[in-house]
């Protein structure tokens, strides 16, 4: 049951999230809400010389939205900014692909476990919630890089 949607990897990230909690320093923060289900996420981005030194987050919501934030942290923390945006694009593409996009494990790591979610339109928003917040925060962080908020 639930094979396609609830992969073991997703349940693992949900039960044992990686890198959860909001940390300092950070340049920008974004808070996103999914109005249909009340899921919320706050993502903070710290950039230093073209590298995402930390992507921290906190939130509440369903297994998909929370596991996706945990995977986001794993994939993007410590990455170069350009690489990070490439991963972000690949994840969004996978999620919007209606289950017809073949995910690249080299780029997406544990993110490939979300391939099945793309077949459930109502849940795609859950999976994307933290990624949208990240994109928002990261764009603003890049615009203000240098002014570290403590």
């Amino acid at each position: 049951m639930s094979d396609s949607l609830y992969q073991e990897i997703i349940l693992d990230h949900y039960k044992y999230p990686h890198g959860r909690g909001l940390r300092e320093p950070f340049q920008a923060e974004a808070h996103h809400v999914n109005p249909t289900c009340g899921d919320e996420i706050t993502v903070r981005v710290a950039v230093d010389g073209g590298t995402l030194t930390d992507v921290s987050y906190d939130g509440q919501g369903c297994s998909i939205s929370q596991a996706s934030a945990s995977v986001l942290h794993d994939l993007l923390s410590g990455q170069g900014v350009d690489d990070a945006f490439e991963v972000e694009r690949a994840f969004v593409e996978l999620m919007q692909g209606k289950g017809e996009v073949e995910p690249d494990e080299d780029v997406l790591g544990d993110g490939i476990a979300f391939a099945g979610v793309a077949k459930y339109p109502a849940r795609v928003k859950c999976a994307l919630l933290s990624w949208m917040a990240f994109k928002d925060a990261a764009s603003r962080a890049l615009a203000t890089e240098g002014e570290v908020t403590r």
Partner: protein
Amino acid sequence: MANDLTSPLDVDRIRKDFPILDRRLAGDHALAYLDSANTSQKPQAVIDALTEHYARHNANVARAVHQLGEESTAAYEGARDRIAAFVGAASRDEIVFAKNASEALNLVANTLASGLADDPRYRLGPGDEIVISEMEHHSNIVPWQLAARRTGATLRWFGLTDDGRLDLSTIDELINPRTKIISVVHQSNILGTVNDLAPIVARAHEVGALVMADASQSVPHMPVDVAALGVDLLAFTGHKMCGPTGVGVLWGRGAVLDALPPFLGGGEMIETVSMEGSTFAAVPHKFEAGTPPIAQVVGLGAAVDYLTGLDMAKVYAHERELTGYALQRFAGVDGVTIIGPDTPEGRGGTISFTVDGVHPHDVGQVLDEQGVAVRVGHHCARPVCVRYGIPATTRASFYLYTTTDEIDALADGLERVKRFFR
């Protein structure tokens, strides 16, 4: 099926009237549709009325001297008669067709806010107060927020008690001579609570305020008589009562509807139009701008016939039985907490709950994979979630075709949900 209940409805027979209940879902699961508060399913009689209308009688109404136009007008206006009778309206002219309950609620909020009424009692302005409650559907919150913002009136509300009921303790202060209108839900779509409107009506009429009831969740499920309720205005929606989407109803006392200025302009809502200015038709047509939802009204007429044929008192009794059964059944599922009244008194067959440690989205998804269709989220009543400190709920809602087997499938499914996420 419903044999273990003392239900007065022959549910096995009724289910045969609803073609969708035979649907097999992915994985060849049977459908247990427990989302009727969201939208109800449609009996064949309603589907047939639509087909028959489009295939044999389709024409615009009120405008044609030809035979199809007369047939279509007779069907449309005939449905108005039956819908008026269904809610005990004093006159067919008290029934206005809107696109849904939301439009009916907005119609009243907007016309009061427009400032175009002759009688000052029907004009909102600074210093005036509007009263709603914390258990309203967004469709009975946002229109009043917009009206308050436009006019400078103040929006106030009844709070909720811990057990999911309206807190009427401050009623005499909350409803006061500054109050112009109180708009409250008759049966909550998230808590299931049925509100006794009598004290509100009594206090409102003492201070000269209007009372509007959002009856979207009561008219489908119990006998509703507008005269007995004593309210001035009442809204409900076709798709939740076996009717088509695309049609809602505003009932209003004749004198109140007469006093409200027009809402949308155009089409047949006029008496005479010149470039310099226009005069307006009498109610209900004053509020029915443009081509109305003709086929949908005809379909709603068929739905009302269907419900009347079953007898609304029996529908209500059946749902009470189901509610009692479900509350008992859920009490036996560990970790499930009911949000709203947990006894069958003063509530309908809509039950919201949380499952410890599992997000409603995940509850709903795993249930869906077993063919059990429930709704998850804030159910367009986010303030209720905020009030009870939860992000969302899972909600099961029943109707005349619901069986105890389906409630059992839900309870069993919840055990499975817990095993899966723990």
